[in-house]
């Protein structure tokens, strides 16, 4: 099937009433989650995980992907109007976005953001359409050893690239892997770490884990730092149109942001956030109006917002092409597909073309839906910001409890939710990253499966895991990524000192 045929086939599936409704509801809920502080896209996606089980895999993932894009856009709205980023990827948008709001250009900025998000997302979809099948073709060459290198190495890379100290990523990753081993072991059926509780044989539920770590921990932060929120300005529809100058100055940042965001989406880590920061830096370097950036320049909004949406889309390439999630939201999508017996990866296009192409097509529809939802309905989204915290905080906390309970009708999952909420709060205080924990919990069973298959097939020869050129190449890249900060530090220690000595000598 050619890319065009595949896309048409996918559009045929994605344009069904059920899938359109899923995209609409996902984008709607995602935007609300992005606008309101507290829940965030990852916890939001986790909450709809049980709902997604009731539908087909394509419907579930369409809803989740739309929610992710919606949250990206919604997060920017609060950043621009209130100088309060809803998501980490909107942090840089606040700088110029809020300055422009103070100059009375809020409506125009929101329209530019919608246009940039649409362009970034749509062009990125073309990239995904071309790139994911190519990656899948390479992926067909992968056996258990290569897949082990990819999953275990990818997880290690993710925990290193998320930033901070080495322990800040590796320790949560280890906790996630430990969590993944709780329950009945898949091959021999032995119960592990269940301590006699039959209930634990099903393992720790992902919804309780993610909503606890992200949702509950964030709620604790919101309650702790409860402050009077500034009143958002009223944005009217007729104020939404940017002027000709604003459009003219936005096209180049749209283009640069799209390319940069797409590339960042292919890398492990918080791609959307890194993409938006990199785009801001790039605009500060190359824009004709760089002297205005930071004081209210449209380039400082158009570039980063385009980049974060392009990255959110291209994040699908490693998930669909290789079956590797590069962040927590993608890990949840992987889990949702696996519940339906669909294993993302090299064989997805041949085994489940309907899922692959429906997801690609739904991204197009989801992007268009976001523009339709966000530009005319901006007044409604702004009014959400006026809901007092004492009303929506109890509502979201109750939703979290109901969401955790509803998956298996078990109070144990609610207890897990509370415990992980506390753990997430403490770990975040000390700047530990939570994404490696979630991805570790999802990838743990896959890593174990590839490890066992490799050992079976090689009759216990450990060399199988580094013998093949592909596995060896993957491990080399992983080692390089892990060691790079250390190498850089050593380099700057040695050559930095030498440089200082040389400059001191020349001064003498």
């Amino acid at each position, binding site marked *: 099937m050619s890319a065009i045929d595949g896309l048409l086939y996918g559009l045929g599936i994605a344009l069904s009433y059920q899938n359109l409704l899923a995209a609409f509801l996902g984008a709607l809920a995602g935007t609300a989650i992005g606008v309101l502080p507290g829940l965030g896209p990852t916890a939001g996606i986790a909450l709809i995980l049980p709902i997604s089980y009731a539908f087909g895999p394509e419907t579930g993932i369409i809803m989740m992907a739309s929610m992710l894009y919606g949250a990206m856009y919604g997060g920017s709205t609060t950043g621009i109007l209130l100088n309060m980023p809803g998501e980490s990827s909107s942090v840089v948008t606040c700088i110029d976005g809020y300055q422009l709001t103070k100059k009375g250009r809020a409506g125009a900025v929101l329209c530019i953001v919608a246009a940039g998000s649409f362009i970034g997302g749509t062009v990125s979809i073309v990239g995904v359409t071309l790139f994911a099948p190519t990656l899948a073709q390479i992926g067909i060459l992968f056996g258990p050893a290569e897949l082990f290198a990819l999953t275990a190495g990818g997880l290690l890379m993710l925990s290193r690239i998320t930033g901070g100290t080495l322990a800040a990523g590796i320790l949560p990753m280890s906790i996630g*892997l430990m969590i993944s081993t709780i329950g009945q072991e898949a091959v021999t059926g*032995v119960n592990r770490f269940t301590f006699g509780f039959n209930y634990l044989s099903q393992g720790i539920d992902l919804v309780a884990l993610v909503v606890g770590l992200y949702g509950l921990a964030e709620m*604790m932060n919101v*309650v702790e730092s*409860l402050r009077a929120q500034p009143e958002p300005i009223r944005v009217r529809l007729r104020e939404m149109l940017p002027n000709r100058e604003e459009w003219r100055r936005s096209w180049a940042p749209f283009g640069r942001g799209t390319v940069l965001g797409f590339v960042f989406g292919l890398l492990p880590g918080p791609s959307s956030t890194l993409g938006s920061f990199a785009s801001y830096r790039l605009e500060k370097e190359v824009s004709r109006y760089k002297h205005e950036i930071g004081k209210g320049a449209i380039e400082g909004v158009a570039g980063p917002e385009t980049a974060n949406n392009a990255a959110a889309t291209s994040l699908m390439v490693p998930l669909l092409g290789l079956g590797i999630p590069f962040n927590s939201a993608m890990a949840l999508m992987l889990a949702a597909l696996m519940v339906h017996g669909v294993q993302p990866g090299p064989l997805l296009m041949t085994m489940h073309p309907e899922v692959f192409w429906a997801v690609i097509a739904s991204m197009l529809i989801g992007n268009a839906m976001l523009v339709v939802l966000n530009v005319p309905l901006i007044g409604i989204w702004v009014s959400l910001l006026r809901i007092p915290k004492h*009303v929506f905080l109890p509502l979201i906390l109750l939703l979290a409890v109901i969401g955790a309970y509803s998956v298996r009708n078990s109070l144990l999952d609610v207890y897990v939710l509370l415990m992980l909420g506390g753990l997430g709060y403490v770990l975040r205080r000390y700047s530990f990253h939570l994404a490696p924990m979630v991805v570790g919990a999802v990838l743990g069973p896959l890593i174990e499966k590839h490890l*066992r298959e490799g050992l*079976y097939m090689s009759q216990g020869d450990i060399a199988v895991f580094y013998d093949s050129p592909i596995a060896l190449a993957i491990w080399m890249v992983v080692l390089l990524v892990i060691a790079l900060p250390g190498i850089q530090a050593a380099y700057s220690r040695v050559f930095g000192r030498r440089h200082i000595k040389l400059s001191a000598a020349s001064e003498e």
Partner: protein
Amino acid sequence: MADSQSQRWKGYMGIGGVGLIFAAAYLQQSLQLPLGRLSQPGAAVFPLIVGTIMALASLLTVWEGWRLARHEMVEWPIGEDRRRLLWLIAIMVGYVATLPWAGQVIGSILFCMLLMRILSRLSWLRIAAYSLVLSGALYWVFIILLKVPMPRGVLGF
């Protein structure tokens, strides 16, 4: 409200120490599982690897804590902020603990009322009204519409 501070290195050492204890207990439990052979690995193999990684990660955390600058601080809430946070934790724990016998409806009404009282200066009457509306809406959506079998409690709802 100003925040109280604690030294980051102490936190790292504490987290690393707790991690080490967990890793030791986890490894001890893993050794009770069937090990198998390398050509036919048993259920213990992967947990043993994971436990070792956890132990190493915990040691790394302790080591990083030891090397952290002593002036690096982590901020914790104090005063009114801390009181609100502790109340939230207490109300959440109370709600979850009483859920099996109070049931979803009564439990969520009480949860909303108490939390709203902590978060706002509204009168009890308005708090009760808001709580009834919120809990009623959730009951209608999840229990009536989506048929989620939430705990019904001693009163049967």
